[in-house]
C-alpha cells in the first residue's frame, strides 16, 4: 500500500516542484482536452438534441450507431485518423491536387490529436445528450413553442431543461478525452515538448518501468480532472426539477 502513498506524496511534490516540462505537459493536456471537448459538444449536443427530440424513420438505427460510436476502440480511431492524414493518405493527395502544393504535416501535431479526440468523444456526448433530451416532456417543448419560441429557442430551452443529463454527457465526453491514450499516442506521436500529454507520458513511464512516477502522474491527472468536474458539478446540481 505504501506504494500508493508514496505515489501520492510524489504527485504533490511533482505538482509543486516547479518542473517546467511537467507544467507544459499538463498545459497541453488541458488545451487538447478543452478544445476537443468544446468541439465534441458543438457536435454532440445539437446532434443529440435532434435525435432525441424528433421522430423519424430509422431513428432506432441512428441511435444504435451513436451507441456503437461510444465504443470505438481508440487504436482504431487513431489508425483511421493516421491513415487519413498520412502523406500517402487521401487527404494529402486531395490537397496536392486542389492546391497544387504539399499539405503541411498535420500528423504528430496537436490538431491531429484533437481530431482523434473529437471522434472518440462526440458519440459519448451525443448518446447521453440524446437520452437526456428524450426525457424532457414534449409538453414543455410545446409550451415554449406556444409562447412564440423558434425552433432554435425551443432547442435551447430543452437543452436547459435537460441540463443535468447534458452535464453527464459532457462529463462522460470529458472523461473519454482526458483519459484517452491509444489514439493520441498514435496520431500525436507522444513527442516530448510537442504532443506529449499526461496520458502518453504515463504510458511512457509505465513502459520504462517507472511505475511510481507513472502512478504519481496518474494521480495528478485524476486530481486535475476532479477539480474540473467539481466546478462542473456545481452547475449540474443547481436547480433540479424533481427534487423535494
Amino acid at each position, binding site marked *: 500500500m505504501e506504494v500508493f502513498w508514496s505515489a501520492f506524496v510524489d504527485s504533490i511534490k511533482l505538482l509543486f516542484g516547479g518542473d517546467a516540462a511537467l507544467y507544459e505537459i499538463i498545459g497541453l493536456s488541458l488545451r487538447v482536452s478543452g478544445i476537443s471537448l468544446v468541439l465534441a459538444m458543438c457536435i454532440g449536443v445539437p446532434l443529440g438534441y435532434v435525435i432525441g427530440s424528433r421522430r423519424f424513420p430509422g431513428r432506432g438505427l441512428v441511435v444504435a450507431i451513436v451507441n456503437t460510436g461510444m465504443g470505438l476502440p481508440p487504436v482504431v480511431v487513431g489508425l483511421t485518423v*493516421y491513415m487519413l492524414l*498520412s502523406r*500517402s493518405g487521401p487527404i494529402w493527395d486531395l490537397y496536392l491536387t486542389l492546391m497544387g*502544393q504539399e499539405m503541411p*504535416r498535420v500528423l504528430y501535431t496537436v490538431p491531429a490529436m484533437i481530431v482523434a479526440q473529437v471522434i472518440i468523444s462526440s458519440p459519448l456526448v451525443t448518446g447521453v445528450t440524446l437520452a437526456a433530451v428524450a426525457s424532457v416532456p414534449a409538453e414543455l417543448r410545446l409550451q415554449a413553442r406556444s409562447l412564440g419560441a423558434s425552433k432554435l429557442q425551443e432547442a435551447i430551452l430543452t437543452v436547459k431543461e435537460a441540463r443535468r443529463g447534458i452535464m453527464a454527457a459532457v462529463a462522460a465526453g470529458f472523461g473519454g478525452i482526458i483519459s484517452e491514450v491509444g489514439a493520441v499516442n498514435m496520431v500525436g506521436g*507522444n513527442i516530448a515538448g510537442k504532443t506529449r500529454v499526461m496520458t502518453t507520458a504515463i504510458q*511512457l513511464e*509505465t*513502459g520504462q518501468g517507472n511505475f511510481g512516477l507513472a502512478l504519481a502522474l496518474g494521480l495528478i491527472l485524476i486530481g486535475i480532472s476532479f477539480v474540473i468536474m467539481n466546478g462542473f458539478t456545481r452547475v449540474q446540481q443547481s436547480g433540479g426539477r424533481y427534487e423535494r
Partner: protein
Amino acid sequence: AAEEPAEEPAAEEPVAEEPIETTDLILASTTSTQDSGLFDVLIPAFEEAHPEYKVNVIAVGTGEALELGQNKDADVLLVHAKAKEEAFVADGYGTERRDVMYNDFIIVGPPADPAGIKGGTVADALKKISDSGATFISRGDDSGTHTAEKALWEKSAIKPAGAWYNSAGKGMGDVLTMASEMGGYTLTDRATYLNMKNDLQLEILCEGDTVLFNQYGVIPVTDATNMEGAQAFADWIVSDEAQTIIGEYGVEKFGAPLFFPNAQ
C-alpha cells in the same frame, strides 16, 4: 522536399545573430530504444550539432516504424530487425541502411531457476525450459527481439507450444514485468533489463553466447519530408561523436554500457 521552400532550412550556413529556423525531423524508433533512455542523451547531442533540426521521436514497434517509413510519415528510422530492414531498402522505401550499434540478448528467469538453465548455452537452456515445461514468456509481437527469439528456437529445433509458452504480444518492459510476476523465463535485450532490474525478481541466467546479438540500423526514408535532416541524422549517428556517446551511455548508471557502437 524541394516543394516546401517555406520550410527549407538554411542548412549550409546558419547566419549568426539571426534565430535559426528549425525544421522538424521525424525519427521513428522502437520502444526499447526510447525506454532504455538512450534518446535522452542522443537527441540533445544531435540537436546541438545540427541546431537546424528538431527531432521528434515516435516510439513504436519495429513493424509499425517500418510502416510509418513506408508511408513517408517518418523521415528516418532507427530499428532492429536486420532482414526486414534490408528488404525495406531493397523495395526502395529507404535510401540506405547502415549499422549503428548492437546490444546483446540475455535469457532471464526467476532466481530459483526451476529449469536449471544457469550457466549453459542458449540451445541447452531452451531445451531445458521446453522439457521442464517451465513458464516462458515471448514478446510475440514480431519485434526484433521476438524475431531473434524465434530464430533461436528454430536453431535448436524446438517448436515452442503448449501451456508453458506464453506469447504476450507486448513490449519488452511489459514482458519483463510479466515474467517476474509469473515466475517465468524470457529473452530480453540487456539494456531494458538493466534499466528495470530493480523492480524485477529476475536474474540473468544465460548470456554471452554469440548467437545473442541484436543489431540496430539507421535508414533515411526515400523521398521523406525532411530528406536533408534524415540524411544528416543518419550521417551523424554513425559519426565518431555519436558512437562515443552510445558507447558511454549507461556506464555511469549500470556499470556497463547498454549499447555497443559498431558503425563502419
